[in-house]
């Protein structure tokens, strides 16, 4: 058969790969059409095609862009039974047939765009071509934000079909704001798709975010394992990945600027993170908060049963009148209190309660003794439940709010923390980000907050937690401030619909069949669902406000050390004694320090005092670490043992005394 070659409207010689067909039973509509192809055509589910109509409309030949969403194949057999009869019931006989039955490849495509866009008509009969790079631009309306003086394209991957290898761009205005914002990714666990995709997109954003739109940073919550612990370490990628990086114009390198934050373990001096290897501690900081920081978010840690109206009033009183203020009360005699830490607060509670007991009072300043006891119990408990994060001494080591750097990733490792502590960290960090962005003094104009396991933090059902409320607020109002939520979860259907619904961009990795059976995926054709259920690693389905239909793309493996590899190459530091832990932390400031010096400096001091001095040094980051550290330690009074008065000498017997003994 001679190959037909046509000259398309673009002028280039291209071969049509199919023809549009429509029947009364299966008509074309303005949003869907059908076409057939040769049996060996490269068309598949997700392929983008272009239809050239035959009849001009308003003087213009219509061009319709579509994406294949369903495929059919059948022969001229009326029923399968005919084939059985034809081979006498012996399947092996089929191979003896001299001729293959007439067979069709019939595809259904969803319309991506019609040119001209008005009048919107059913798709006409015409020739079907494989979309070229230019066609892909037009079909996905990328021409609107990739051309012109201020392009805002962020590569999300490469669309690949039948020889076409076109980078697909998201619109930064719709990814980071202000038009739309937020990104949500869903997919089964264990394929590293979600984390890898987020790492790749962050790298892409950092490489392509338009200068004119300002600065951007990312705050990532590492909620499990070592996933995000080695973002600054190079990983292994192959040639195929490199070509994808090249195609998308993203450097195949790890993140240049990464800052890690992790609370301490309950011992107060070992960092509670998988990135605790001494070689990597240079950009790891501790995350510790004191009473003031925590009290602002008491409702995160105290549930509604804990905090009734009375308890809430007392907490408010403590926050307003006690913490960080000089406080005296007639009941407490002339003693003056200045509560800065949980330890101070505990002392204050103790004194108040014993004073009430001594005087036989049931109430104090309208607060009943039972309420005071309850609040004391709950608040004191916080420092235990969040040990390592919340310090008794009031020392604060925090993210650099106010001096965030452009194109920097701030990773907060909460993987090993209790749920309460995770909630507290999330609530406080997001609130602080929001406050600073509102005041425009964060240091950057946009912050991307990445939260994994969203179905845990913002579930569809379950109680209305403070964290869920925050996430809803972030999803609904964050884009106006430049606060953008990138979220991930295994089951999108189990995430609050207002969170996922507000995500302008949605990515899908390989999906679980049960998840695909939920109503949220009803808009997808069965073929697209099957494709989603069998997606390879490195493939995503993308929904974006500019794309009228989901698009399948490939993205490269992040040029970052995988968490598992990092954990092997940089094993977690073993728990050590206090002196070694202090040395390990202070060495990040002054590598010349030795264990001997630390031991000498610490001497016989209490652990709390040493930790306080270490924390102060790390916060201050002084030029002379030794001097500063020593200055934070209270001097030890040297005990001078007075000299013993000389006892009078016992008279001794003359050596020649024969009776002497």
């Amino acid at each position, binding site marked *: 058969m001679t190959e037909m070659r046509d000259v398309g409207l673009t002028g280039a010689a291209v071969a049509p790969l199919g023809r549009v067909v429509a029947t009364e039973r299966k008509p074309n509509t303005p949003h869907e059409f059908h076409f057939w192809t040769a049996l060996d055509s490269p068309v598949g589910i997700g392929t983008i095609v272009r239809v050239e109509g035959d009849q001009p409309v308003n003087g213009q030949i219509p061009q319709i862009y579509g994406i294949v969403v369903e495929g059919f194949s059948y022969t001229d057999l009326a029923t399968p039974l005919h084939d059985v009869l*034809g081979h006498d019931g012996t399947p092996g006989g089929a191979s003896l047939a001299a*001729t293959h039955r007439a067979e069709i490849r019939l595809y259904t495509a969803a319309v991506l765009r019609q040119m001209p866009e008005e009048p919107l008509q059913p798709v006409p009969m015409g020739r079907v071509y494989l979309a070229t790079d230019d066609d892909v631009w037009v079909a996905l309306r990328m021409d609107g934000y990739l051309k012109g003086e201020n392009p805002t394209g962020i590569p999300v991957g490469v669309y690949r079909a039948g020889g076409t290898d076109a980078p697909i761009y998201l619109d930064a205005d719709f990814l980071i704001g202000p038009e739309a914002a937020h990104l949500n990714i869903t997919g089964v666990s264990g394929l590293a798709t979600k984390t890898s995709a987020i790492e790749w997109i962050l790298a892409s954003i950092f490489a392509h975010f338009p200068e004119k739109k300002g600065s951007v940073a990312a705050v990532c919550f590492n909620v499990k394992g070592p996933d995000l612990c080695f973002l600054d370490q190079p990983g292994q990628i192959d040639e195929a990945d490199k070509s994808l990086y090249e195609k998308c114009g993203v450097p195949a390198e790890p993140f240049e600027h990464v800052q890690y934050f992790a609370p301490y373990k309950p011992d107060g001096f070992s960092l509670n993170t998988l990135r605790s290897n001494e070689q990597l501690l240079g950009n790891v900081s501790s995350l510790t908060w004191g009473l003031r920081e925590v009290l602002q978010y008491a409702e995160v840690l105290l549930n509604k049963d804990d905090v009734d109206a009375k308890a809430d009033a007392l907490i408010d009183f403590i926050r307003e009148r006690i913490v960080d203020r000089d406080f005296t009360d007639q009941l407490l005699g002339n003693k003056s209190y200045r509560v800065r830490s949980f330890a101070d607060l505990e002392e204050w509670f103790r004194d108040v309660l014993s004073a009430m007991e001594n005087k036989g009072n049931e109430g104090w300043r309208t607060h009943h003794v039972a309420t005071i006891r309850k609040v004391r119990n709950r608040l004191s408990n916080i420092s235990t439940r969040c040990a390592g994060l919340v310090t008794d001494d009031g020392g604060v080591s925090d993210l650099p709010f106010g001096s965030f750097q452009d194109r920097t990733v701030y990773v907060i490792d909460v993987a090993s923390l209790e749920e309460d502590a995770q909630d507290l960290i999330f609530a406080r960090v997001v609130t602080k980000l929001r406050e600073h962005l509102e005041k425009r003094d964060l240091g950057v104009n946009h912050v991307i907050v990445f939260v994994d396991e969203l179905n845990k933090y913002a579930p569809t059902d379950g109680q209305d937690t403070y964290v869920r409320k925050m996430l809803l607020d972030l999803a609904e109002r964050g884009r106006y401030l430049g606060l953008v939520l990138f979220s991930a979860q295994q089951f999108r259907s189990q995430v609050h619909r207002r969170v996922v619904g507000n995500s302008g961009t949605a990515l899908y990795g390989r999906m679980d069949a049960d998840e695909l059976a939920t109503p949220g995926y009803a808009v997808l054709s069965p073929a697209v669902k099957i494709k989603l259920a069998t997606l390879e690693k490195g493939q995503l389905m993308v929904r974006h406000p500019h794309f009228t239909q989901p698009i399948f793309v490939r993205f490269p493996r992040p040029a970052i050390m995988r968490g598992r590899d990092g954990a092997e190459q940089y094993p977690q530091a073993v728990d050590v004694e206090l002196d070694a832990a202090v040395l390990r932390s202070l060495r990040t400031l002054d590598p010349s320090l030795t264990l001997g010096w630390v031991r000498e400096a610490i001497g016989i001091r209490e652990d709390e005092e040493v930790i306080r001095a270490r924390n102060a040094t790390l916060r201050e980051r002084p030029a002379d670490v030794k001097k500063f550290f020593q200055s934070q330690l209270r001097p030890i009074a040297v005990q001078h043992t007075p000299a013993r008065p000389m006892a009078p000498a016992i008279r001794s017997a003359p050596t020649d005394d024969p009776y002497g003994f």
Partner: protein
Amino acid sequence: MSAIQPSSPTQADASFRAAVRLLASLMPEAAIATGSEPPLETLAQATEPPRTVGAIILEDPAMRAHRVFEPPVAQFAAFLDGTQASRTLYSCDDGTPIVHGTAAAVIRERRNMRLYTRRHIVAHRIYANRRRVPAWLWTRLAESGMELRDTAEDDGGDGPHPFAARDAAIHRLQRDREHAEHTLAEDWCRREDRPLLIDGGISGVEPVARSSCAVGVIKSHRTLYAEGDALVTIFALRRGERSSVFRVASDWRTPVASWYLRLRDRAGTDPMWGLVRVEVAHPDRAGEHTIGARADEVSRWILAEATPVSLPDARWDKMVYGVRDCEEFLRAVI
């Protein structure tokens, strides 16, 4: 291999719908066909009476069954079939029908076990008795560019009964269809030496009838070339058996060698179930002793075409799949 482009259809749009539009424009008040009428071929009765004819047996002293022992082998390079469709466009005041007819034929070539169109012919024409059609109408039809066939000279074409005129049109169309088939067959035989399976007899055109590459397979048995015991022998053929080779000759056709072949085991009451008659070029006198071997060889080729079955066609017991494919193609293009 060079592919032959499809023949050009008539310049003017001569399709049934174009003819209907034309007549409607010429006679707005007249009752013109709507297109929902069934083809005339389904209405006309077969005119050839069933009969048996004695034949000269070339292979054996008397008609007998031969088992085709060697396994089937697919050797046909292509398949040829034709079709026709006709509808009455308009009936004149005296009942004379103006018939629209389409004759078509195709060769579907097999490459890598799939069938592709090698060449096809589609011709639309208007058939009518010129003497009975108003002159102005004939003239206007001719001026439109449509090809007209005057059936006045055909058998019964000039009779007053409308059915006779209709049958004459159908017969004329049948000849046009056969002409299309012969054109394609001749072209193949002139250019190729690979075997071509032709649906129907090959004796109608001499170059084809004498070609070694043309094999005709006849499914209809209104004429049986056997009588008496020979007929019993043919009806008793079992699957994979053929009859002795005999000669089919008439005054107006080229003699060919023929035999009966059972493609499928006889089932039910029809003695001709799965039975086809095969025609190949008649051997010259020197080659007559090899005709048996030739019949075995060609029978193996045809038996190989028994799969895939041609269901859902009602004649699937006798129809090879390549011919069904030709019919499907023609159904799509006419």
